[in-house]
């Protein structure tokens, strides 16, 4: 899926290379052509040397310059210095042996530059494609002036409470509440969800969404810097603070790699000739020094280093395109090793919204029972009352509802059209003297009595999200071994939900603090520390659990600062299927990272060994070195395209 408009296709065609890259490409081509031309020129001696120094200089003058800087700043193991020593050494050997073969030194310089150029081009290109993905913060807001004109201003300067106007096709710059107008919003940039969301008056809208159809007047509720789009961008840019083990490994490796190779090169240049000399044979200085110089050609760790952060960056980009924000590449790594996933029930696997799921009247029809109950709960702020009103939307008819009395822990009584109606739990029924019966269904049971006589009950329960079962099946396919559910709800309800979703273990009737203890138990239970545990919650009052788990995943991050703050991974919408998406992306990304580490280090080692035995020459070494880098970079770029 490529979200590319005409404008972006045009820029892709034009400004592919930055000026530096263009200049370097010209240098590479010029030096290459010149070398080929010189090959057909029958010159010898000093003139030949001087002529060949021209392409060498064109290809490598910046390397030579940097090498001198390296010496001045006491950076003896600077890559440029090593490249200079290797190529200059090859030239000196060619002069000394009177072979006149300067092409090797030029080729090494040239291929090194080609490698650098390719790397810079590839990195620049993926940087751009990810930047496009992150291009969610608009650079202006339309503010209405006193005479009703629209003025474009910097969103940073818009104060909280200002009325801004968002025209169709524009991006929402700042979080706010719709004052007038209706429209549908494309939230894909934030959530990865392609179905537009309808908004009307009093709805909250978030920056980064695109207004599709109608004109919206919005009162801002946050500053630009605190708005969703800015927060999301900040989070992605800060991801470097949490480096993965692979990244730390490779930067440590890079730090010892160069000195080690240089040490080996020195040893190779000195030890064998001295040993040969001592044993009375010819020392063969030239051969061994040449082999040592081959070592220096592959001493630059850049190829190795670049592909790892590139893979992670691309992986994080791919995830955020799906509406999954990962706060650091270490979490991507941990996610790929997750074997136990602990779910909070309410708001995570279920919608956390209570709905009337059954109505069991005794001697009237279902509508009548709902009608009465909705009247009694007319003014209650309890979530149960809201769900009753939702089930009976035309509650405000001309029935008279008087004397509403709320009895804490029991329910509500009221006079409806002259009858005393009681709506509440079993205790309320006992209190009004009604003979009630329990229900076979799970959920909250709301009994209704009219003038002390039992009239039936209404079952209200939480509804399972449509993707929950599929999400758990998908997670199992992607390496999850155990699904655990924690909930504060009763045992019967919890086990019903768990059975329906295929959850392995359930812990019910937990208080919030018990959840931390349970997660700690589960953490202690694992056989090895390598099997990670992830906790998925909705970010509401489960911050301690999110923090305690190896990976804390919060759902419904859009608009919820608490969730964004507490979690390691934030799912922008509340679709549980996104958890398995994140796990799949992490698995693929980590596989690519491992491939690159083994492949790059492996090829370098083989080159070193072949070089030491004189089987490979400088040509081969630089070919292998640049080749492995190109392949590693191309492999890393695959991470962007993980769906």
């Amino acid at each position, binding site marked *: 899926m490529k979200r590319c408009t005409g404008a972006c296709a045009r820029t892709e065609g034009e400004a592919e290379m930055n000026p530096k890259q263009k200049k370097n490409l010209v240098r590479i081509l010029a030096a290459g052509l010149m070398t080929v031309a010189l090959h057909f020129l029958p010159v010898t001696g000093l003139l030949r040397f001087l002529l060949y120094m021209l392409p060498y200089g064109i290809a490598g003058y910046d390397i030579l310059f940097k090498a001198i800087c390296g010496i001045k*700043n006491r950076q003896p193991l600077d890559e440029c210095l090593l490249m200079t020593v290797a190529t200059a050494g090859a030239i000196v050997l060619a002069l000394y042996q009177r072979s006149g073969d300067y092409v090797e030194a030029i080729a090494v310089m040239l291929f090194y530059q080609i490698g650098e150029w390719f790397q810079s081009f590839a990195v620049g290109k*993926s*940087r751009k494609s990810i930047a496009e993905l992150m291009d969610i913060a608009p650079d202006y807001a339309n503010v209405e002036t006193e005479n009703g004109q629209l003025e474009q201003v910097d969103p940073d300067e818009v104060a909280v409470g200002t009325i801004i106007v968002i025209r169709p096709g524009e991006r929402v710059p700042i979080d706010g509440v719709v004052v007038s107008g209706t429209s549908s919003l494309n939230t894909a940039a934030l959530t990865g969800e392609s179905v537009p969301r309808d908004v009307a008056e009093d709805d909250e809208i978030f920056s980064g969404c695109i207004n599709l159809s109608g004109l919206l007047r919005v009162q801002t509720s946050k500053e630009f810097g605190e708005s969703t789009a800015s927060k999301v961008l900040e989070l992605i*840019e800060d991801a*470097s603070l949490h480096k993965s083990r692979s990244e730390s490994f490779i*930067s440590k490796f890079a730090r010892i790699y160069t000195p080690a190779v240089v040490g080996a090169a020195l040893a190779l240049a000195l030890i064998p000739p001295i040993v040969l000399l001592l044993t009375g044979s010819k020392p063969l200085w030239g051969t061994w020094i040449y082999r040592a110089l081959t070592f220096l050609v592959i001493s630059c760790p*850049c190829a190795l280093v670049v592909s790892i952060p590139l893979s992670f960056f691309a992986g994080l980009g791919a995830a955020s395109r799906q509406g999954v924000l990962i706060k650091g590449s270490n979490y991507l790594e941990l996610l790929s090793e997750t074997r136990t996933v602990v779910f909070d029930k309410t708001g995570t696997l279920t919608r956390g919204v209570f709905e009337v799921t059954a109505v069991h009247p005794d001697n009237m029809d279902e509508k009548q029972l709902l009608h009465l109950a909705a009247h009694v709960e007319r003014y209650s702020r309890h979530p149960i009352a809201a769900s009753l009103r939702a089930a009976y939307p035309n509650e405000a008819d001309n029935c008279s509802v008087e004397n509403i009395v709320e009895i804490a822990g029991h329910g509500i009584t009221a006079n409806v059209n002259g009858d005393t109606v009681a709506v509440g739990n079993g205790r309320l029924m006992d209190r009004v003297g009604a003979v009630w019966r329990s229900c076979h269904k799970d959920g909250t049971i709301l009994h209704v009595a009219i003038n002390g006589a039992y009239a039936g009950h209404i079952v209200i329960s939480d509804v399972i999200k449509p993707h929950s079962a599929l999400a758990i099946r998908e997670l199992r396919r992607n390496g999850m071994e155990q699904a655990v559910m924690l909930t504060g709800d009763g045992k019967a309800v919890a086990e019903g939900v768990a059975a329906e979703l295929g959850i392995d273990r359930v812990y019910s009737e937990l208080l919030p603090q018990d959840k931390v203890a349970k997660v700690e138990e589960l953490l202690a239970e694992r056989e090895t520390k390598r099997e990670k545990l992830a906790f998925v919650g909705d970010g509401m009052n489960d911050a301690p659990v999110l923090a305690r788990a190896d990976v804390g995943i919060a759902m419904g991050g859009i608009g919820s600062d608490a969730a964004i703050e507490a979690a390691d991974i934030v799912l922008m919408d509340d679709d549980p299927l996104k958890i398995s998406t994140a796990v799949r992306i992490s698995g693929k990304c980590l596989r690519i990272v491992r491939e690159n580490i083994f492949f790059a280090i492996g090829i370098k080692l083989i080159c070193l060994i072949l070089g030491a035995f004189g089987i490979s020459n400088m040509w081969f070494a630089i070919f292998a070195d640049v080749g492995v880098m190109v392949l590693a970079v191309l492999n890393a770029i695959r991470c962007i395209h993980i769906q």
Partner: protein
Amino acid sequence: MKKSYKIDVDCAACADKMEVAAGKTPGVKSASVNFMALKMKVEFEDGADPASVMQEVRKNCKKIESDCEVFL
């Protein structure tokens, strides 16, 4: 106090070196370079003056990699 700076550097290994160089600069508590985002995040020690510390950070980075830039 933490601050974020834009940087420019060509290779990933050099970015790592910049991170080390910046981290060793007096007044810097910790520094982290994001090569892909071209950002350097610096946490300063208490009482350090970011402006003057960053001048030093820039100088130290230039020392190890003449081709890099820290935009202050």
